[in-house]
């Protein structure tokens, strides 16, 4: 059985010995390099651009402004039909007459090297007229605020309300209302390899070939074809090794599209690699929410009602093509979702600001939804004198509550909330911790424990983007090709950015077909070769591409066995495949190798009678039906120590108990969870994109934008409950969001527990040392 086995991924060895091939490792003949002139202002009018001095520099081949690209490429609007009232201002490849964030590209220089292109960019003279920047949601939505977009009358991108039950009555009748004002600051998903692209246009065949560090090659193929006016089958997008993506790399980015247009106009390959400063300035950002929330409790700790009011500080535009609404939408729908409460209200306002576009980064909205509810439960329990873990247990959705549609409107097939809690409490002895905590406090050492229950929405179904009007495949297709020697190639639409999904799919195929793992090679990340698929995002690989692979392998197995049955003159039902050999199921007698069947199938097909299903290349597909998501769930417990003199928080221990249904490979799932936790600890303690009052980014390098580093990270323990989904045969749910979803809430609660003797609390992340000491009144 290879499903469920702890198989290390082949790719890891290759990357470790330095044989990775990332976009920047690829060099094409006659290739040019692109650098951008980016706006130094958050909000400004462009009065004139003079490119003549740049054009005169040796090595500079072309300089483009928005006007130069008119007619060569279309503009776009990030609209979503499920949110028809959401504003969708027009965006183009280069800013035309107004820049709306510091770092927005206004001109592109193509030169013989990147250094020469940067020399050129320095020589482009832009006449700016500064405009008042709009830098946070409150300012953006205040009357009289400067309006970012010409076709809008204010900066309100979207507004909505979700209500269930009678919230006002629930609050009026409550024994206690816990209330908190939260601030989740802006950060991003920091990939080791920045965004990068090489676009190569062949004019005689009108063919565009793109190498790109990306999560969704087929989506890009469609977008490049439409925006550049090319027939789709003439566009090929290849994603080589991708060094981390986290949601940064599943969008259309204006600078990357510029590289495609430049390649088309110049008929030479054009490379653009975002450097780290450009990444901070122009990548997709995430979070940036101000949330006011209240939770009503009965005296016994029953949750009677919940009200969440979210001010979503979005960016200058919606991200394209998915739009930016999901983060706000997830917060509105997911807050308090693990709990059985009937009276719910969520208000959401989303504002455009003069900051980089904000959108989908790993665990979209989840960390906020989780942290808000989990913090309110701790606050409520403390006030009522109840044990916070017991309050959770009391309100958890229980086995007989399922299936259930939450008050926020999310469908849950099943959540293993109590089993996860039970397992966590077996691993961490909370009573013993409380004793150690008291002893440590007596010595002036402040430790705290924090619990966070989370749900994890994975494997987005076709209804979300299909109904939204986006060309984003939620269907996965798998093509299997048995080679003449009996080894196998598997072509999938899922892509691998380091998470190892290719190994998971390899395991599924090998398992179903009874082949040794090494006989299966998975090929992905090529829009011309691989069947149309959605790529990898939203934790969809195992659940969707895994299921498609299982179906394809099942069909191929049937064909192999029917060929064997006809050759052996036996009944196929009595045969199976083990380690690449067809054997008699009952007796175990070996009959013939799969390689023999492959040889006959390909080279002596006349030996197989007509009418026998003998295809050795098969294709099967899978799409979920009638559901937006597959929901996983879990629980995190963080233990931290707070230095109340410096305000520095040290995570000491971190546990995740997680249920992602059937596990294809525990090694991969644990690493997904650990990586996610580290990213969540980053959000909780370190990562923040800070701006000055003029909207200039202050954190443009790793000296100022702090990421979590190994030295500060605790050991992260991971345990599992396995509740397979019944909606598929494989039973896998996604696993990529879990770590990030719960870590912020767990750390926030742990820090607050640690400082509880001081009658202080904090509700702002990242919890920086000055913020924490302020909360403690230390300076």
């Amino acid at each position, binding site marked *: 059985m290879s499903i469920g086995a702890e198989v290390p991924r082949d790719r890891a060895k290759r990357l470790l010995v330095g044989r990775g091939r990332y976009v920047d490792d690829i060099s094409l003949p006659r290739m040019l390099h692109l650098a951008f002139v980016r706006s130094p202002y958050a909000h400004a009018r462009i009065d004139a651009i003079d490119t003549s001095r740049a054009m005169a520099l040796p090595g500079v081949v072309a300089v483009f402004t928005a006007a130069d690209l008119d007619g060569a490429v279309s503009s776009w609007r990030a609209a979503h039909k499920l949110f028809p009232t959401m504003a969708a201002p027009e965006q183009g490849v280069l800013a035309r007459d107004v820049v709306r964030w510091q770092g927005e590209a206004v001109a592109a220089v193509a030169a013989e090297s990147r250094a020469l292109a940067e020399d050129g960019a320095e020589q482009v003279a832009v006449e700016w007229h500064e405009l008042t920047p709009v830098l946070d949601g409150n300012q953006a939505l205040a009357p009289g605020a400067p309006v970012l977009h010409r076709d809008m009358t204010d900066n309100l991108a979207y507004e909505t309300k979700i209500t269930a039950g009678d919230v006002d009555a629930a609050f009026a009748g409550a024994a206690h209302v816990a209330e908190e004002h939260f601030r989740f600051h802006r950060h991003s998903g920091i990939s080791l390899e920045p965004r990068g692209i090489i676009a190569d246009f062949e004019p005689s065949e009108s063919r565009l070939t793109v190498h790109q560090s990306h999560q969704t090659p087929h989506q890009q193929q469609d977008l490049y074809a439409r925006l550049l006016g090319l027939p789709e089958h003439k566009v090929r997008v290849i994603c080589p090794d991708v060094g981390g993506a986290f949601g940064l790399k599943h969008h259309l980015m204006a600078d990357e599209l510029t590289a495609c247009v430049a390649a088309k106009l110049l008929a030479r390959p054009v490379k653009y690699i975002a450097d780290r400063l450009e990444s901070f300035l122009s990548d997709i950002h995430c979070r940036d929410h101000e949330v006011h929330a209240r939770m009503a409790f009965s005296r016994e700790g029953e949750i009677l009602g919940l009200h969440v009011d979210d001010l979503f500080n979005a960016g200058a535009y919606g991200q394209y093509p998915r739009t930016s609404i999901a983060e706000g939408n997830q917060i509105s729908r997911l807050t308090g979702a693990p709990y059985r409460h009937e009276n719910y209200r969520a208000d959401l306002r989303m504002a455009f600001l003069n900051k980089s576009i904000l959108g989908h980064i790993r665990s979209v909205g989840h960390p906020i939804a989780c942290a808000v509810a989990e913090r309110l439960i701790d606050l409520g329990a403390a006030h009522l004198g109840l044990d916070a873990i017991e309050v959770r247990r009391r309100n958890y959705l229980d086995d007989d509550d399922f299936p259930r549609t939450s008050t926020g409107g999310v469908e849950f097939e099943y959540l293993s909330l109590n089993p996860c809690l039970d397992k966590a409490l077996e691993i961490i002895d909370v009573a013993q911790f409380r004793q150690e905590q008291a002893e440590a406090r007596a010595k002036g050492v402040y430790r705290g424990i924090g619990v966070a229950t989370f749900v994890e929405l994975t494997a987005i179904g076709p209804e979300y983007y299909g109904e939204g009007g986006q060309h984003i495949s939620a269907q996965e297709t798998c093509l299997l090709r048995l080679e003449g020697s009996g080894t196998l190639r598997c072509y999938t639409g899922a892509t691998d950015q380091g998470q190892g999904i290719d190994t998971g799919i390899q395991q599924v195929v090998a398992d179903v077909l009874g082949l040794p793992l090494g006989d299966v090679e998975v090929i992905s990340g090529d829009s011309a070769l691989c069947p149309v698929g959605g790529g990898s995002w939203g934790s969809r690989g195992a659940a969707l591409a895994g299921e498609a692979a299982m179906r394809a392998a099942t069909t191929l197995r049937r064909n192999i066995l029917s060929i064997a049955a006809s050759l052996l003159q036996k009944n196929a039902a009595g045969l199976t495949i083990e380690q690449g050999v067809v054997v008699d199921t009952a007796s175990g007698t070996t009959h013939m190798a799969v390689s023999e069947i492959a040889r006959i199938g390909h080279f002596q097909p006349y030996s197989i009678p007509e009418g026998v299903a003998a295809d050795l290349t098969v294709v099967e597909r899978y799409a979920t039906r009638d559901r937006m998501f597959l929901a996983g769930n879990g629980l995190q417990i963080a233990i931290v120590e707070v230095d109340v003199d410096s305000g520095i928080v040290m995570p000491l221990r971190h546990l995740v108990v997680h249920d992602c249904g059937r596990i294809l490979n525990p090694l991969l799932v644990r690493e997904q969870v650990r990586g996610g936790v580290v990213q969540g600890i980053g959000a909780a303690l*370190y990562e923040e994109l800070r701006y000055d009052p003029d909207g200039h980014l202050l954190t443009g390098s790793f000296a100022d934008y702090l990421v979590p580093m190994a030295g500060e990270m605790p050991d992260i323990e991971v345990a599992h409950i396995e509740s397979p989904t019944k909606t598929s045969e494989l039973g896998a749910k996604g696993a990529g969001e879990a770590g990030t979803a719960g870590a912020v809430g767990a750390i926030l609660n742990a820090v607050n527990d640690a400082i509880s003797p001081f009658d202080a609390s904090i509700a702002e992340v990242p919890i920086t040392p*000055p913020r924490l000491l302020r909360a403690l009144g230390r*300076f």
Partner: protein
Amino acid sequence: MKAPDFDYHRPETLAEALDLLARHGEDAAIIAGGQSLLALLNFRLAAPERLIDIGRLTDLKSLSEDHGHIEIGGLLRHCDLQASPLIARELPLLHKAIGHIAHPAVRHRGTIGGSLAMADPAAELGACCLALDGEFLLVSLQNRRWVAAADFFLGVYQTALRADEILAAVRLPKRRPGSIGIFDEIARRRGDFAMAGLALAAQTGDGGLSDVRLALLGVADRPILAGKTMAFLEGRPINEARIDEAAALIAGEIDPPEDPAYPPAYRRHLTGVLLRRALLELCS
């Protein structure tokens, strides 16, 4: 983030290097470990016409002692100093501080001369040299001069170095019987530049501390001596009440620059915390 074009020289001798500097001084930059300079070049914050790589000047790589002093060549790397038994024995303050500089990869390239010439206000080595009352040897084609650490640092990235000079050596007094050296700092993550730090050198005796030199990093535009606090500590025994007073005094004495991430009041608070910790360590 690619450096603008520059010419590159790699002199084999100090004389050759000084000659190049004499000719090109203003338009040239010395490169030692490159750990600070390369970032400046790639961000295009510096655009020298030529780089003079002093990496081959073995004259600047010696470590020597006489009866009262240690002399450290300007090209010795942080890791060389960290591994040196002589430094560990004779300059324990410096030895302790080096462990706080960045990470092994940076310590394997960065040099003491580069760090001092860069004059980052949060650098550990500058504060140590100030606490130890060190001197720096600055040489040019025409001239050699010793400059005291207290006179060397002029502001953020500003020093007494002239365009044609190389920082050739650092001279620091060896520890004496009864001398103490405490180094401590508070950084967000291991290896980060500190939010505040302290280097304390003094003699201990029956009457408490004497010859107190208390240098601070990360709280001004350069490493500074906390004069009032030094005077307060001089010649008096340390007890708990005095520790509180000293911590309050030092927090009031300094005036950290505005910084949106770490406000001045926070750095003042941290400096008090560091001094309290240092004095408590002395008491125990």
